[in-house]
């Protein structure tokens, strides 16, 4: 009589253990990216301490946190806002000009033959080399920085949107033409919806490029912003502070990238690939 009472919990134990094991595996699987990052930080920290790497060569994560805390919140917010302001202005300009330009290029053979080569030339010009000239021409203020950011971001938007617009199945266009739809409706209701996945993949790439553009511009001429702060910190050999600013830049890029993805998910859920729906 006793044996079943003893064996009962055993069997439930047996059942519970694999359950817990499975749950643990699930947690580990879900948190894998986070755990990997934490492990990397730990190795970084230990490596710096073990080999006594000076903070002006490679600061340990703890030194970077200290460096970040040594700067006032007000100062951080000021620099973040300056970089964000320039990035978003340049990015917005690139979207506002890039997408209509792409529509024009996709629909006019003449335009694509005349303008496209110019765009390729602009894209092939190393912006870093031209940046000082842009600053001299456009003077102080946000204008030159916005222009540099715009130049870096708009090309991927144009190219990708044109590709998307041209990916519209010709049969659809023929059908709409046979039904007497206007050119505007054709673009609005057929071509643009087909291009949405292409446009958003370009918007995602460009938003991270916008941050790069703002930083490049700040290296050349600026009084605030995270790029300026990195140049400024290294001029005093405050490398941990510069790394902290780098961390903030990466975070900013990631947040903007996710925001663009979220926008697509909310506004155009049908345009997502099946795996992401």
């Amino acid at each position, binding site marked *: 009589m006793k044996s079943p009472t003893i064996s009962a919990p055993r069997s439930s134990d047996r059942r519970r253990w694999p359950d817990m094991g499975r749950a643990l595996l699930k947690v580990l699987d879900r948190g894998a990216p986070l755990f990997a990052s934490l492990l990397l930080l730990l190795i970084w920290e230990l490596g710096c301490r073990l080999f006594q790497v000076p903070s*002006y060569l490679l600061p340990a994560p703890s030194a970077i946190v200290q460096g970040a805390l040594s700067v*006032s919140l007000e100062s951080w917010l000021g620099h973040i806002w300056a970089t964000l302001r320039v990035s978003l202005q340049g990015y917005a300009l690139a979207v506002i000009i890039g997408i209509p330009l792409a529509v024009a290029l996709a629909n006019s053979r003449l335009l694509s033959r005349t303008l496209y080569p110019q765009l390729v030339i602009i894209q092939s010009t190393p912006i870093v080399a031209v940046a000082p000239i842009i600053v001299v021409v456009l*003077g102080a203020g946000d204008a030159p920085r916005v222009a540099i950011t715009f130049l870096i971001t708009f090309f991927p938007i144009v190219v990708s949107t044109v590709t998307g617009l041209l990916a519209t199945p010709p049969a659809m266009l023929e059908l709409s033409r046979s039904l007497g739809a206007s050119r505007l409706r054709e673009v609005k209701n057929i071509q643009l919806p087909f291009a949405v996945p292409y446009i958003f993949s370009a918007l995602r790439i460009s938003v991270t490029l916008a941050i790069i553009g703002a930083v490049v511009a700040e290296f050349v001429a600026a*009084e605030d912003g995270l790029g300026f702060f990195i140049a400024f910190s290294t*001029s005093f*050999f405050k490398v941990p502070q510069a790394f902290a600013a780098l961390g903030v830049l990466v975070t900013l890029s990631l947040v903007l990238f996710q925001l663009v993805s979220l926008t697509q998910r909310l506004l155009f859920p049908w345009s997502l690939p099946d795996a992401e729906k």
Partner: protein
Amino acid sequence: MTFRALRSILLALGVSALSATAGAADKIRWLNDWLPAGDKAVIYLAVQEGLFEDAGIEVEINSGRGSSDVVTKLGTGAADMGTGGLSALLQAQAGAEVPVTAVMSIYTKQPDAVFVAKGAGIDRLQDLKGKTLATATFSASNVTWPLVLEANGMEPDAVKVLKVDPGAMGPMFATGRVDGTINWITKLPAFEALMNDAGKEIKVLPWSEYGFNGYGLSVFASDRLIQENPALVAKVLDIYKKALRIAIDDPAKAGAALKAMVPDVDADIAAEEFAASARLIDTDVAGQDGLGAFEPELLAETWRWVAKAQDLPEDSLDPETSVTREFIPE
């Protein structure tokens, strides 16, 4: 009636526009030659002391990226006045018409120096033979360096020079990747802070002790401003000189003023940096000729170094045309 009414309205508008112009504060766009640091503190001190406000001048301070950047931006009208090495201006004007004029000298000694580690057996320039130095890629010092070596009986390539990013120089020096660096002497406090971390001390070899003489940092103004509003140039220089004197007497005040306007700066290091630069300002030469003066012989010597470094004929520029003594305050 309507015409009269219209005329009186127009007149009233015209008068108010005129009075608005007269009442508007003079505005000056000032450009320092590098990122905010103690040796650039004078203009910030002038703002913090209220000197510009008292004179009814609105000032906007920006940071250039080197002396030649300042010359370019003043020449193209992106800024009105600023500071930069006089050599950069002379060099620019030897090649082209650049509408910029030096209006006041600040450093009467050249700021360039070699920093080496104490106890490394380098006591004079000649001991650098076979050693490696780091220098900033775009530093104007690079052009003069071979000439300084030659003037001291050394081959121009006797010392190996690595061109690197300014931010990398200190760490390379501290870790012993290079035996020393070529810097402006004003950078000494920042380097000392870094080298202390590495348990080392710095020995300075100023080029001015090895025959490199001339005016260094000076105040420039765009020719457009000099023509359009000479009174403003004079006023700004007067303010600048006042602030310079306050800073020389009390470098801590200069450091604090810079900190107040650029919060990321370390006020103590900034004060030390200004004190280091004051040794180039408050010199025997300045004592003799007066603060801000351009003495013809020293000016000519400044140009001779530039001409030699750039391989230009000495008569390709009369350095007197690059400066004006009209505005130097008493």
